[in-house]
């Protein structure tokens, strides 16, 4: 299990190859890649700056991954989240889950992403021609995370 917060971009193929390297029990890998769009409140986002809370971020992500491990039968999981200045079309987050069968991989991957959206301390600030603005949290993200509560 691994979590990383980094400024640099990531190579999805290489990350997935490492995640399942040498493990013949892995029969499925599900991955989610989040990408910066040029559209939020209006179609004029030039750059996105990702801030986080060092120390808490890694702990929060590790807690989410640990919970996924308890709920589903997974071999390994990885979360890579970028911080700093990003532009539309840039990759922002990778969640990859390896398991024996696809059901566990799909479910755990979606769970980790839904919880990351509502529990990991990251904040987005958009720069537009009109100036900078902090992105507001969405109620739909809370609803997505609430689906997983038993």
């Amino acid at each position, binding site marked *: 299990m691994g979590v990383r917060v980094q400024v640099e971009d990531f190579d999805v193929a290489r990350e997935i190859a490492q995640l399942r390297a040498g493990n013949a029990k892995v029969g499925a890998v599900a991955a989610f890649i989040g990408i910066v769009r040029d559209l939020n409140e209006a179609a004029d986002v030039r750059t996105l700056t990702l801030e986080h809370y060092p120390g808490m971020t890694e702990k929060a992500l590790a807690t989410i991954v640990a919970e996924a491990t308890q709920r589903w039968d997974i071999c390994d999981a990885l979360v890579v989240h970028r911080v700093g200045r990003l532009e539309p079309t840039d990759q922002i987050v990778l969640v990859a889950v390896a398991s024996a069968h696809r059901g566990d991989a799909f479910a755990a991957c979606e769970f980790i992403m839904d919880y990351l959206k509502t529990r990991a301390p990251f904040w987005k600030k958009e720069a537009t021609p009109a100036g900078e603005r*902090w992105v507001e949290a969405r109620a739909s993200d809370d609803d997505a995370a609430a689906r997983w509560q038993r």
Partner: protein
Amino acid sequence: MIHLVYLARLRDALGTAAESVDLPREVSTVHTLLAWLAQRGGVWTQELAPGRAVRVAVNHDVALGDTPVRAGDEVALFPPVTGG
């Protein structure tokens, strides 16, 4: 003494990123800490008013209103998260 950290939009609004403060005796939980800080007036009263969406972490763990706050703690105040 506790260490307070303000993040993202809240840091911009309050105009400060961090401070160390001595707690008065009546402050023992997240709820009483927020009420005490809100008494500072101006943007503090505005941003920390009851009903505003302020999230709190104590020592890097998500905290609720009744979470204890003790000397030596790092307490972070921030808006709802928007990562991913």
